[in-house]
């Protein structure tokens, strides 16, 4: 079998992979580049898939495409769509594809994203159960909404929140089933969680707490969900947002160091030479937190694609970036910035309150002789996100500034 050769090979056609390809092309226009994707089309807006305006047709469907065929052709980037990479021989620098073909490379980027975790209960293979990862998933949900009457959402995170708004806008009876005792526990505190729940309930969404799905009932299609406590929720559609993660055994077998993601240093280099990883798939050394973490948001993937691309053309650049994610719905805007995890050495400074419908929590790391802002959760205070991101990045000592941090009328840009 003929082997195709490319100087730069990128496995993954999402925003990380595509931005890497673009960055490489700008600096090494002579080097051949190929992007392999298991989806048949070029870069599209995966984040748009869960936005109500898009789903309900207020935004034309074709707005989802971010790079068309002409872009790949104009930039001399070979797009190999509908092909899944099955094995990597990093010693001989050959990637094998599911169709039996092989590609040899000089430099390789793995930007394969993450996989939606699936329910593993009896009945989980029935029709009418949806996950949201790809355009095809999105189209399936868009079609199902047209005839469904009652939906159950499993999972109390971003997908659950955004899908709930969408389903209510489409007029479906909607119930969210969460394992936690309040929405978005423990990423948010109970006050923040209850603010979100109030907005959901005011819109008519039912929430069932501390519940887990035991079984899905129905002939071929979903008719009801049975929970572990025996209660039954009638529904003809289920959307699951219960986490993300891929089976990385085959990469491990190929010699890669993996954990929940593909492990990299701060240059997004994996342990195997001339192989990088970027985007949701990468579990990378974060210089700002001084920890190895894995993130799943658009802006991180875009930035990591760019930095990986620079490193692949020998412009050695560490990835140093304060990440953030925002969502809005039910009249609320919610943002997560930096590292929002709590711990024994972390103090939470509150800004505003649920009562004034504007509430932020700033997570401060207490290092003894100094205190630094690590992260924040913001509800209806998204205008402060940029200022907080700067505080996190600058690592300034806020020991003497805790009052200002906690004063909702103090402009954080002044710090």
């Amino acid at each position, binding site marked *: 079998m003929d082997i195709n050769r490319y100087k730069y090979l990128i496995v993954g056609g999402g925003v990380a992979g595509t931005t890497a390809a673009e960055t490489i092309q700008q600096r090494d226009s002579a080097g051949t580049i190929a992007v392999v994707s298991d989806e048949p089309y070029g870069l599209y807006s995966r984040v748009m898939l869960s936005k109500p*305006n898009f789903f309900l047709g207020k935004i034309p469907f074709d707005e989802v495409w971010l790079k068309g065929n002409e872009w790949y052709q104009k930039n001399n980037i070979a797009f190999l769509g509908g092909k899944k990479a099955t094995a990597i021989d990093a010693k001989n620098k050959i990637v094998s594809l599911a169709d039996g073909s092989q590609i040899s490379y000089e430099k390789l980027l793995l930007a394969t994203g993450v996989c939606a975790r699936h329910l593993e209960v009896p009945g989980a293979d029935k029709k009418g159960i949806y996950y949201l990862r790809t355009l095809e998933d999105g189209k399936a949900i868009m079609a199902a909404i047209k005839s469904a009457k009652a939906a159950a959402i499993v999972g109390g995170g971003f997908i659950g929140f955004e899908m709930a708004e969408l389903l209510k806008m489409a007029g479906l009876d909607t119930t969210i089933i969460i394992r936690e005792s309040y929405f978005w526990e423990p990423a948010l505190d109970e006050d923040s969680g209850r603010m979100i729940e109030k907005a959901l309930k005011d819109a008519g969404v039912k929430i069932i707490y501390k519940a887990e799905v035991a079984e899905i009932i129905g002939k071929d299609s979903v008719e009801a969900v049975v929970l572990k406590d025996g209660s039954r929720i009638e529904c003809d559609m289920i959307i699951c947002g219960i986490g993300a993660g891929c089976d990385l055994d085959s990469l491990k077998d190929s010699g890669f160091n993996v954990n929940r993601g593909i492990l990299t240093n701060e240059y997004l280099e994996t342990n195997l030479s001339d192989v990088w990883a970027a985007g949701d798939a990468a579990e990378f050394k974060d210089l700002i937190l001084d920890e190895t973490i894995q993130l799943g*948001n658009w*802006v991180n993937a*875009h*930035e990591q694609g760019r930095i990986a691309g620079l490193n692949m053309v020998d412009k050695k650049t560490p990835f140093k970036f304060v990440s953030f994610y*925002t969502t809005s719905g039910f009249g609320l805007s*919610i943002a997560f910035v930096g590292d929002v995890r709590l711990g024994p050495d972390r103090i939470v400074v509150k800004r505003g309150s649920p009562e004034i419908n504007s509430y932020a929590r700033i997570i401060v790391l207490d290092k003894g002789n100094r205190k630094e802002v690590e992260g924040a959760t913001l509800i209806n205070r998204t205008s402060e996100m*940029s200022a907080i991101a700067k505080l996190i990045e600058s690592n300034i000592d806020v020991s003497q500034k805790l009052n200002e941090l906690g004063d909702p009328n103090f402009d954080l840009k002044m710090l």
Partner: protein
Amino acid sequence: MPNTKEYPRKKEGSKIAKIVIDRDLCIGAASCIAVTGATFELDNENKVIVIDPNAVDDETLVMAAESCPTKAIILFDKNNKQIYPK
């Protein structure tokens, strides 16, 4: 009626004369802010606003527009012709 906000740009030597944000398309992904925090910021409705339309050069502004996952940043030249998205 599209929900847009326009920001005239008067940067010396620039081909871009106007930045428009489509607030219906904007989802607060904030990748534009990551490219240039001097130009863009979020308001309290989680939508992007332009704080300084003249802060950066054309190349950086185009990069910011291209990073947007919903193409909510629209750029126009002096003759009101749309430069991006093409």
